[in-house]
């Protein structure tokens, strides 16, 4: 019995890998296929470009991107290969995004607790939460940087990376707040009433009933939050000029897009991998909460 179950799992895992590889192959075929048959000047309709140009500057060959990725960044002495530089930058961004995600998750969860505890808070705060996500990041970034520039408490001084982390947390807290609230409110009335018959107060009900019940809602929210934190970090790096991360690298390499177009794709691929890695880390954290995770499918 266990044998077959184990075999089944290996089989399903193998097929998952297969599908993943297939997806990448399909993307590659689409890219090169369109490049081969598409019109060099692209397709325009009424002056707006509908299909992209296919020349080597607009769409470099995949082979060129890969070869460029193993060549050094530039000719100065000790310049690392592009892919090494990309990994370094990705790790840097991951660290900043992790700070943003952690802060955002804690803040989001606390807001959810408050909203669950006080119905009036929910009605007062929830619309503001939604409103907060409509503020464009590019309007926010300079303000946060300017505020941060003035903070100086003793030996502590505000660094640019903290602004980036704050912006990342600003994006990350929202899904967590909303998801956690739904989770905390998910227990059926009959269960809440059962707790009441036990004479359990709000805190005990929270601990024994609401928190465990919130897990299936919380985990996807945390994953969403992680993805948002990565996006926030990448965008905020560009917008605030924080150095060392993948977002900054994307725009720096894009600057040489005219004369070295294949170079720009390595950090973009790095950003994609970064998103996947962060989702995987959160999924691993979720494994330890598996006991409470009844409805959500494992990912």
């Amino acid at each position, binding site marked *: 019995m266990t044998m077959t179950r184990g075999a089944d799992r290996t089989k399903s895992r193998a097929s998952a890998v297969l599908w993943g590889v297939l997806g990448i192959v399909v993307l590659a075929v689409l890219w090169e296929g369109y490049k081969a048959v598409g019109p060099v000047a692209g397709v325009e309709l009424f002056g707006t470009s509908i299909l992209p140009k296919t020349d080597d500057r607009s769409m470099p060959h995949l082979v060129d991107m890969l070869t460029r990725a193993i060549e050094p960044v*530039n*000719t100065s002495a000790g310049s690392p290969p592009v892919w090494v530089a990309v990994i370094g930058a990705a790790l840097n961004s991951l*660290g900043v995004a992790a700070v943003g995600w952690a802060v955002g998750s804690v803040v989001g969860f606390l807001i959810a607790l408050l909203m669950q505890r006080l119905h009036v808070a929910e009605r007062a705060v929830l619309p503001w939460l939604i409103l907060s996500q409509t503020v464009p990041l590019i309007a926010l970034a*300079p303000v946060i940087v*300017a505020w941060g520039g003035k903070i100086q408490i003793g030996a502590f001084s505000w660094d640019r*990376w903290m602004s980036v982390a704050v912006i990342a947390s600003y994006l990350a807290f929202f899904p967590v707040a909303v998801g956690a609230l739904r989770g905390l409110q998910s227990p059926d009335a009959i269960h809440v009433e059962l707790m009441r018959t036990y004479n359990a107060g709000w805190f005990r009900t929270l601990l024994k009933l609401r928190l465990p019940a919130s897990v299936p809602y919380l985990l996807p929210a945390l994953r969403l939050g992680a993805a948002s934190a990565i996006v926030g970090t990448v965008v905020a790096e560009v917008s605030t000029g924080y*150095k060392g991360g993948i977002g900054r690298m994307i725009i720096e390499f894009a600057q040489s897009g005219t004369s*070295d177009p294949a170079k720009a794709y390595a950090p973009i691929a790095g950003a994609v991998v970064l998103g996947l890695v962060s989702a995987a880390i*959160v999924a691993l954290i979720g494994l330890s909460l598996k006991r409470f995770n009844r409805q959500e499918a494992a990912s």
Partner: protein
Amino acid sequence: MKHSKRITLGVAALAASAALVLSGCSSSSSTTSAATSTDGSALTPVKLQLQWFTQAQFAGYYAALDQGYFADEGLDVTIVEGGTDIVPQTQLADGAVDYAVAWVPKALASREQGAGITDVAQILQKSGTLQVSMADKNIKTAADLKGKVVGNWGYGNEFEMFAGITKAGLDPATDVQLVQQAFDESGLLDGSIDAAQAETYNEYAQILETINPATGKLYQPSDLNVIDWNDEGTAMLQDAIWANTDKLNNDQAYQDQTVKFLTAALKGWIYARDNPQKASDIVVAKGSQLGASHQLWQTNEINKLIWPSPDGIGMIDDSAWKQTVDVAMTAKNLEGTTVITKEPDSDAYTNTYVQKALDALKGEGVDVTGTSYAPITVTLTEGGK
């Protein structure tokens, strides 16, 4: 068994993310602990905001930092890089930094909106903005732009061009086809733009770092035509050092610090003039991603925009300032707006501090005019690597 494995994995993941959080905290926190000058006294912390990322456009400041000129003046200078949404003059007016590098017209626009800032040193004496076209298009003057597809970046970078087109007797709205250009030159190279905007020290070099498919070699200056707004008479002043007006008027310490800051910064630019290769190396070592040959080109081109400075580097030339203000008040973009609507007040610029800095440098026997300056020849490589 299965259960405990899961918990172990989860704990491992938690530990990993905690490590990430901590590394995020520690790796990026710069060590600015108790900087002292050579004689042991504490240095005054000063922040300089750039318009963009580290590149040789700012070589002088990096050279001054690297050569210890700032420390010699008792200053602990932090050079703050720009970003796409960081407006240097706003950071300065908000008090987040002590000095900022900004283009004059953009800064004047911010002044009109209430930013209290003053131009204390005009580093670039000439404009570096070009309108570049392929030689076979025969676009040599602003008048030749008639009926052509003309690219511009917008964001306040376009006014010299609009003024030039208007001055040539054309109407920017009807006589030329204006298109928004990305911050690179691909539109020019693939033929979708006839004349594209480019800075001599950056985008123009990127064209020259690209293979010309017709010849199989890199594009040569002879393959291109350029319209130089300095020749067309609509050039505007670009990179200048701006300071906080309020503090300049009321704070004696800030006034003294400004003279010291300018003395060191100008000395850095003089170093970049006399040692372009070393200055470029300093910038590359500071983590510029564009390659060494590109940065050397940029250093050289920036030097050409500074030197010679007959009145001394950093002095604000009255007539160039007037021309900038004139263009800023008269040139209309497509929306019909001008950069500024009225003459800037007398606090907009001052030569007081740069004059003191120049006197100090002359006292040290430094050549501040660069009368005998001659640019070097830079060979570009493919991709600027």
